[in-house]
């Protein structure tokens, strides 16, 4: 296992470009969420540029893996990564949240058909991913080589529906299902452990018969290895709890829950983009 240093460098540079796009389009939109998209940029980069079986030139390719974004509000990172991966022109990112745009404030398949699901209301993405994994298992049984990825926030684990889905996935032994929890510890009203404690989080997943992997969500090698090792798990769904730093990449935004649901203004954009550019693609984990 493991990816080369060269690959790590490429991924880090790509993630940095994606973060710059996120800051750029959020300032332009004048509304939207900043912390989650920034802290999930590394995981999205690994997925779209290393792990996912997909084809940006043929989004509906039937053999593709499926990626379900449950917490739709972090769509600036989804849109930016998709654009950088070649699904649509990067300049289209500027239309985010504008009238008639394919890039709706929360993802909507009616406008951008290459999305696997529309999302926004929290807590229902894992259920949809479970449905996809079940369909794949009905058609291909245990030999299925396809992976269904469900990307979840930590705050949305407060929704009871997430645990309904977790129970079912454990019961059905969905080895083809990989959930990723963005454990950034923040939500709109504050820090998750103050709003509604989630710990012991990994024990909760184990209790429903999931295989749990915990990683540093900003370490490219760890992210790539986690997805790779998940492929070897038999008879259990897999959850990767990715410890991330809310607002990762811009020191002024990091770990502050107030960046959950607001965009940068022009001045903050300048600071953020200067910071991202001067790092020159050398973002390293602080863990």
């Amino acid at each position, binding site marked *: 296992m493991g990816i080369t240093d060269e690959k790590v460098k490429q991924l880090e540079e790509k993630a940095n470009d994606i973060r710059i796009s996120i800051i750029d389009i959020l300032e332009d939109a004048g509304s939207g969420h900043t912390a989650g998209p920034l802290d999930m940029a590394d995981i999205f980069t690994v997925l779209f540029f290393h792990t996912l079986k997909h084809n940006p030139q043929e989004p509906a390719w039937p053999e593709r893996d499926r990626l379900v974004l449950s917490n739709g509000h972090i769509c600036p990172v989804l849109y930016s990564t998709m654009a950088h991966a070649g699904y649509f022109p990067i300049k289209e990112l500027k239309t985010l949240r504008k009238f008639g745009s394919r890039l709706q404030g929360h993802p909507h398949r*009616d406008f951008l058909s290459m999305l*696997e699901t529309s999302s926004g*209301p929290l*807590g*229902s993405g894992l259920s949809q991913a*479970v*449905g*996809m994994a*079940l*369909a794949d298992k009905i058609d291909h049984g245990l030999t299925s080589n396809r992976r269904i990825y469900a990307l979840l926030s930590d705050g949305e684990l407060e929704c009871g529906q997430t645990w309904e889905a977790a129970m079912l996935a454990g019961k059905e032994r969905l080895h083809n299902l990989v959930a990723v929890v963005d454990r950034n510890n923040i939500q709109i009203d504050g820090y998750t452990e103050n709003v509604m404690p989630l710990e012991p989080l990994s024990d909760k997943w184990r209790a429903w018969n999931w295989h749990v992997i915990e990683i540093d969500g900003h370490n490219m090698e760890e992210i790539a290895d986690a997805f790779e090792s998940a492929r070897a798990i038999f008879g259990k769904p897999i959850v990767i709890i990715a410890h991330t730093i809310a607002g990762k990449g811009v020191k002024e935004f990091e770990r502050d829950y107030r960046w959950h649901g607001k965009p940068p203004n022009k001045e903050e954009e300048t600071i953020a983009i200067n910071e991202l550019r001067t790092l020159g693609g050398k973002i390293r984990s602080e863990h």
Partner: protein
Amino acid sequence: MLNPELKLNTKLFDKNVEQIPIRQGFGEGLLEAGEKNLQVVGLCADLTESTKMDLFAKKFPERFIEMGVAEQNLASVASGLAAMGKIPFISSYAMFSPGRNWEQIRTTICYNNQPVKIAGSHAGISVGPDGGTHQAIEDIAITRVIPRMIVISPCDAIEAKKATLASVDTGTPVYIRLAREKTPIMTTGATPFEIGRAQIYWQSTKPQVGIAATGALLHKALLATKELEGKGIEVEVMNLSTIKPLDEKAVIELAQKTGRIITVEEHQIRGGMGSAVAECLAKNFPVPMEFIGVNDQFGQSGTPEELIEHYGMGTKSIIQAVTKILKR
């Protein structure tokens, strides 16, 4: 007289008319759908026998998923299955699906444009002794308001079977409203059925009132009509089993022909089928209307017959409504 073209059950006015629960028709329809189409899957939230999904589950265990008591998950897992090309049918009591899981139906099924079929059993006040918590009398209102949703309320088990089979190929979300109790069989296998098409079951030469009924109460409307005929009052009766999309042409024609419309449904008056008819007629051909249904109340325990009478949906109430509207 009964519309001869529709090949209805000629014994439907008999005292010992055959009675079958509407949900049984769904169960048989799903079984046949499963035989015809390998993409059909069934999901149930711990009410497999009650909702008659057991017929499908026994025959196709590999295409049946027991969800446990988790209706929100039921709706969204079905959406995921549909996204992979499956045609999922989900069943529970209507109070819980589409009741408890309305937002999941709205967002993950309808907004997502996935062709999930929602079978809501034990709908209406005739669930009886279980009491008000289990009597879904708001389900038509909350489903017909969602874009893309087709809403069907079959009048008997035979029509329920046809509706279930027809819903497989719509490519859209469908809500099928089912009832628990045995109710009279009004149609036959030969009665034509088409989603979105209302049918005149009882024809009159010079009708003074038009009744649009949905679900099993259609039988009460027909009984009332027969009784009124003896008193020299001519009524025309429509089976409005597809509530959305509404057969506007047929509804307008009935209003034009009769000049007075009464709607009959086992549902809250506010927001139900009567409201759908009123929306159509207010815009296109306003006529006096009366509404038979539950008047902004919750139900209680009792026998189905007691409850139908108590909440003003029986034959007597329909006759009173006809008398009243004729004076307007």
